[in-house]
């Protein structure tokens, strides 16, 4: 038998599996051109989501996702709870009314100091400083309302009626 016949004999003994040939053909086609676009997408998917095939990585990513979601919920829950506890500290005033109050207190204090110069020795009584301050403020408020009332009824006359206000001379207001 010559070499040619020996080769044919060997080829017959080692036939190629048709399935493998088909796969080989597909791979050659993929690499050379007609399936090139689909191959790029497959490659990207494999790169981005290849971790899903590795159990350890898969578990890690799941745990990380749950941690992120839990963190959002816990943080927001704590913040909402803390904001809720602020309710007891809310007041109805604002900067403007605070400044207004300061001015009023300042003028009432000044009035109190002025009044201390006009002491009635005969019928004086002892009162707490705070109560007197409150009284002076009330008097000042009453004074304004009285003036407004006079204006409304049209009886005001260059301050003549105001001068007749009881006790006004003594207090020198």
């Amino acid at each position, binding site marked *: 038998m010559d070499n040619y016949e020996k080769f044919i004999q060997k080829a017959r003994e080692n036939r190629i599996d048709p399935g493998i040939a088909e796969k080989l053909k597909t791979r050659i086609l993929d690499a050379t051109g007609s399936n090139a676009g689909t191959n790029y997408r497959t490659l990207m998917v494999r790169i981005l*989501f290849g*971790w899903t095939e590795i159990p350890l990585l898969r578990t890690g990513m799941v745990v990380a*996702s749950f941690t992120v979601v839990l963190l*959002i919920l816990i943080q927001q829950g704590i*913040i909402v709870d803390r904001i809720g506890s602020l309710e007891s500290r809310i*007041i109805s005033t*604002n*900067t403007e009314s605070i400044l207004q109050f*300061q*001015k009023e207190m300042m003028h009432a204090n000044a009035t109190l100091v002025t009044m201390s110069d006009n002491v009635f020795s005969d019928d004086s009584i002892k009162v707490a400083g705070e109560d007197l301050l409150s009284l002076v403020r009330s008097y000042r408020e009453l004074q304004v309302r009285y003036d407004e009332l006079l204006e409304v009824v049209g009886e005001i006359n260059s301050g003549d009626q105001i001068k007749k206000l009881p006790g006004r001379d003594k207090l020198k207001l």
Partner: protein
Amino acid sequence: MKHFNYRFLALIFIIFASCGGPDALVINTVNRDGSVDRKIILTWDKDEFNLEECQVPVDSTWSIGKVMEISEKGDTTWTLTAEKHFDSVTEINLDYTSYGGPNSKMKRKTEFLKRFRWFNTTYYFEEKIEKAIDGYPASDFFTKEELHFFYMPQSMVEELGSGSDSTMVDSILNIIEEKQDAWLGASLVKAAIDEVEYFNQFEKTNPVDIELIRSREKVFTEAISDFEGNETEMIDSIMGEGYYEKYKTVFDTSLSVMEDKFQVAVDADSYLVQCIMPGSLIATNGYIDSNSNILWNVDGESFVSEDYIMWAESTLKNRWAYIVSILFVAFVATGFVIRKLKRRGY
């Protein structure tokens, strides 16, 4: 040596809380980078402002403006507004250390913290005034509700007192007034004994029996509010005739030091502090007004026996962190969907 008549302690605080000079409102606008825009509003019935007499450090480096107005009652009010930008709280603290005004003996310090918490960034600002004497905290004597009114600015107390809860407010204020003497008296006694103990350690020849004095602390506390005489007579009446004279060196020094410390609180010129924080407010020990600004009252009582810390905390959402996190969770979910599709042969 100065002699205190301790009976008039509470009265001293009430009378001297707001007499004399202009009223001050200090507004701190805290920025995200830790810088603070400070604004001080002084109101007075005369145009005689002296910046060196201000309750907080103010000088000619500030932007200053003045306005005069006449109210419907005929009152003339002068308002001085001073503004300055501080790059950090360190600059404010430096101003406090070099301040020489009426509140110069008050030890004040501000602090700012920024904490990154991924989804939120929290901002913390505080201004701390160190206690004058080492007494008892107010919380040992007052309930939580009473403390709420104890530290409340006067304007707010007045507003609540004239509202629908006026009876309740009056009742609480009366209780506070009754407890105030006891609290101040107990704090002074404790502080005095602590000072005696401190200076006693340096007295080698004739030391005081500090344990004996401490065992009589309650007796001293009960006596201090009603005793008519000075501390020499009070100590002699409790510890025995001639006791003060026997240990005069220790008592003179320690009581003098204690009185000097207490005087810091008595001499404190009161003012209001307002704070505006970046983002949403989440916690504070101040009072929150209708514009979400935080308000505190500073007077001698607030820091007499414990550190007075005015603090506020706010938060800002980090939107980019939310976006990144949501994208990450979506990415993981997508991975699992693709895996499932692959297994089904799509």
